[in-house]
């Protein structure tokens, strides 16, 4: 991690020869595409300025984005490593920095550093398994990367079920792509739901946990969940009732992060750091942690 | 002090036992004899740890609001032990509607001045393990790992006690004191006059030296009863000044000067800021300067003298001085 600075960074003349490149230094990147997904979610495509790949990542990992004047924040990488050299981030507007991110335009340069965290075990535990993805709202972002990875290595995995819910139809992130690509993927079933009935929606209406119980999936699969904390809690309860073991269930957590490398000391849950030991956790591991997340 | 102390402890127990109060906010014996900590006693049994001695300098008024003790009526009344100077802070918090009077039962406790262990240490006394007060309250026998010695109480008083405002309690439900009539000790504005008499460059150098020690721990602010904002501007990331560290010599002054201006007219000169500062910065000098100026501009005024008073900085009279009088007074 401390290899000598190879100047991916566009130094303003002050780069010191032989200086070790610190993990805290961002690379220069550019926003090459922006997609408006929902009234408060946009997806940003980020690529390096030099044309070289930014870095390699695995599904579930995160990166720290710098927005000039607003500082840094950690976001889940939404795109799959199989999708190309770019990184995509689906970001919900919910605070100062994300407000400002939503104001960005194509061509804007930003800083990026990463990848951080432990990815989903797509090459090990997930291999050969049936997979059940359960997401709520912007919680689809980290799962999106896994789903695309699985699609790219389709024969390595068993049957895939995707259950995705949001407040309204307009709040389903990247719905067009889900309908055109995921719903037509072989051996894959997609179940969508929204919280309240609305005109023009003839799909399922109801919260994710109750729809999950209705669907009554058998426990012969690995579940991967992400969404608001309250949804995760009820989904986990439902899965246990449906006969799942916590060892079959994975989720990804979020806490405030500053460094991304387990040193700044703020994203810990007990002795584990979300940025380094997570963000992906198996649910039986979470049971051993204090309830402080 | 011992006579008052015993009466205070007994009375606190009685008030708890007879149901007048449901809990006691007082001081608890610490690790050593000198580090008595503010504490909330919820049971009569726990009152065995209650102490009132020469090392109970902490002002419990702020303690009542940081812990929301006095805002919860349905849990019964809280007995709070207040020294004379603490009652000014209490009144000021009442004025600012940060406390509910009905939820608090005030036992005014007599005070002969509190001692500061750092001043004992400053005499070169190390490894202090115990202290005994002489009968007349004038001497302390200090026991240490390296031998015993005797010192004068007067020489080791907490800064705020050296220029005590007087021993009269400004608000109480009940009083245990044998020196209520005693007036002020020393002239608390002498130090301000000293500062005022300095040449600007000399005064600047004085503050530069003091404030450059600041580590931005916020102890002064968090202990200050006048700093009762729900969210401090220095904690607000949107303010642009929430930097957490003094990134330059301007910033270290900025923090303290803004804070002092914000409490001007409301500061009761309780001295907690200087008492808690880990770097021993005499922060109370800012506040005293403003108190002295306010007295000179608008007539004698003591924040917290009584509850409900309108301070001169938040009321207007036709004869008030114009703002430029401040710069005129500041000289060049």
């Amino acid at each position: 991690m401390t290899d000598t600075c190879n100047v991916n960074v566009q130094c303003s003349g002050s780069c010191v020869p032989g200086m070790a490149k610190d993990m805290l230094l961002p690379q220069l990147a550019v926003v090459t595409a922006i997609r408006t997904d929902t009234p408060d979610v946009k997806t940003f495509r980020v690529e390096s300025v030099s044309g070289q790949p930014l870095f390699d990542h695995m599904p579930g990992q995160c990166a720290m984005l710098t927005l000039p004047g607003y500082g840094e924040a950690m976001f889940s990488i939404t795109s799959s490593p199989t999708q190309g050299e770019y990184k995509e981030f689906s970001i919900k507007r919910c605070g100062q920095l994300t407000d400002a991110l939503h104001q960005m335009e194509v061509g804007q340069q930003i800083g990026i550093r990463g990848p951080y965290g432990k990815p989903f075990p797509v090459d090990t535990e997930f291999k050969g398994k049936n997979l059940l993805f359960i997401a709520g709202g912007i919680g689809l972002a980290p799962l999106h990367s896994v789903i695309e990875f699985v699609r790219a290595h389709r024969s390595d995995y068993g049957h895939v079920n995707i259950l995705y819910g949001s407040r309204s139809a307009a709040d389903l992130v990247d719905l067009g792509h889900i309908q055109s690509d995921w719903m037509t993927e072989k051996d894959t079933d997609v179940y969508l739901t929204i919280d309240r009935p609305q005109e023009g929606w003839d799909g399922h209406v109801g919260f994710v946990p109750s729809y999950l119980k209705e669907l009554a999936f058998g426990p012969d699969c690995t579940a991967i969940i992400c969404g608001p904390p309250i949804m995760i809690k009820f989904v986990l309860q439902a899965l246990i009732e449906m006969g799942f073991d916590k060892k079959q269930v994975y989720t990804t957590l979020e806490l405030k992060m500053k460094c991304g490398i387990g040193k700044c000391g703020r994203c810990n849950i007990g002795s584990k750091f979300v940025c380094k030991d997570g963000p992906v956790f198996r649910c039986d591991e979470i049971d051993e942690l204090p309830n402080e997340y | 002090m011992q006579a008052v102390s015993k009466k205070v402890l007994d009375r606190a127990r009685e008030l708890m036992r007879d149901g007048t109060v449901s809990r006691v906010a007082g001081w608890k014996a610490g690790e050593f004899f000198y580090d008595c900590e503010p504490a909330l006693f919820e049971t009569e049994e726990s009152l065995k740890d209650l102490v009132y001695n020469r090392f109970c300098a902490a002002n419990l008024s702020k303690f009542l609001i940081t812990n929301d003790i006095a805002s919860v009526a349905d849990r019964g009344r809280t007995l709070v032990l207040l020294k004379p100077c603490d009652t000014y802070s209490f009144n000021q918090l009442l004025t600012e509607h940060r406390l509910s009077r009905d939820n608090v039962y005030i036992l005014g406790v007599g005070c002969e001045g509190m001692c500061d262990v750092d001043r004992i240490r400053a005499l070169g006394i190390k490894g202090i393990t115990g202290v005994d007060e002489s009968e007349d309250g004038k001497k302390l026998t200090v026991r240490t790992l390296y031998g015993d010695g005797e010192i004068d109480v007067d020489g080791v008083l907490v800064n705020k006690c050296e220029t005590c405002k007087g021993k009269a309690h400004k608000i109480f439900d009940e009083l245990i004191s044998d020196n209520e009539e005693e007036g002020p000790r020393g002239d608390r504005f002498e130090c301000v006059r000293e500062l005022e008499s300095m040449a600007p460059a000399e005064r600047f150098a004085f503050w530069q030296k003091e404030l450059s020690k600041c580590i931005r721990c916020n102890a002064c602010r968090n202990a200050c009863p006048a700093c009762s904002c729900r969210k401090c501007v220095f904690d607000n990331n949107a303010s642009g000044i929430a930097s957490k560290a003094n990134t330059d010599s301007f910033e270290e002054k900025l923090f303290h000067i803004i804070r002092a201006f914000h409490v001007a007219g409301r500061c009761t000169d309780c001295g907690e800021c200087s008492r808690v500062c880990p770097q021993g910065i005499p922060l109370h000098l800012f506040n005293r300067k403003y108190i002295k100026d306010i007295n000179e501009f608008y007539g004698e005024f003591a924040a917290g003298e009584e509850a409900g008073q309108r301070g001169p900085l938040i009321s207007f009279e036709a004869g008030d001085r114009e703002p430029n009088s401040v710069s005129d007074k500041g000289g060049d």
Partner: protein
Amino acid sequence: MAVNGSVKKIRMSDLDRFFSALSLTQKVYLPVEKAGQYDYAPWEPGVSYDPEELHTVKSAKGLFFPQSEDLIKYRREGLSLAIGPVAPEDEEFVVFGVRACDVKGFEVLDRVFLTDPVDTYYKARRDHGTVISVMCPKPEETCFCGTFGIEAEAPGGDVQCFITGEDMLMEALTEKGEALLESVSGVGNTNGDGALLPAADETDLKAAEEVKEAHREIMKKLPLAGLTTEGFGKDADLLTLFDRPEWKELSATCLGCGTCTFVCPTCQCYDIREYDTGRDIRRFRVWDSCMYSDFTMMAHGSPRPEQFQRFRQRFMHKLKYYPDNYEGAFSCVGCGRCLKKCPSSLNIAKVMKKLGGADND
């Protein structure tokens, strides 16, 4: 202490000359008094070493992990961005007068900052700094380094020193320390009757042993000498400790200030913030405190909304989480600064007594 060339001695009255000689090539930091308080500052003519002062207000950690340091500067022009890293410190320096507890404090920080991925900024300062420790003269009632297995009579670092009356013995422990002492070997003493740093003889070494022995006796008498780490550390049950009801009572009067954190030699949590100078934006790292309410605050709330949770975090980190992550080592060195400085007189000794082994009470 064996008789060999590596133990030197210097007259206490010649220390200024020692600092002056070292200062020709590098900065020498030592505890310096400023308006009544001691903190580390560079030596300059007129500054003298006070052997009586036990602890600086802030520990020496700031020399390796400064309270505030720039990481990058960047500039935005229209849509483009120019990022310029700030080079890590590469100047040699000496820190003199560090106590055993603070030397161990560096090791606590090393485990965090020097394990992969290495913190370049910290490492640069560690690489370029030489640590000269001095055995503490008179331990105070607040000292409890022994609880963490620290031997105050072997303060460590690159060179360790012992005051034997009029003289100070200097023992090099590392090559770096050896080289440092060697660098002033050609300097003469103030009187002009010999070398500044002659080799110590048998009598000197015996005197040092006597000083150490007397010190050990005092350490045994310290009020906190019996405090143990029993009930904490790697083998303690995390959730049991976390769920102890006493945390609320222990933290009831915590003001939520950062005094304990900022005077602590082992607290290493930091924040990364930005400052727009108008010309460019400086990103800097600053000490942070888990006692502050914004430490874990996110747009949708904080996992530690109450002060007792933040208080618990600080002590769980030192006594349980850190040991879990670093092979049982504790993140406290018993320097006692928090015992002296907490405005509410809360501290780790009280926590350990309340929650720890039966012998602690």
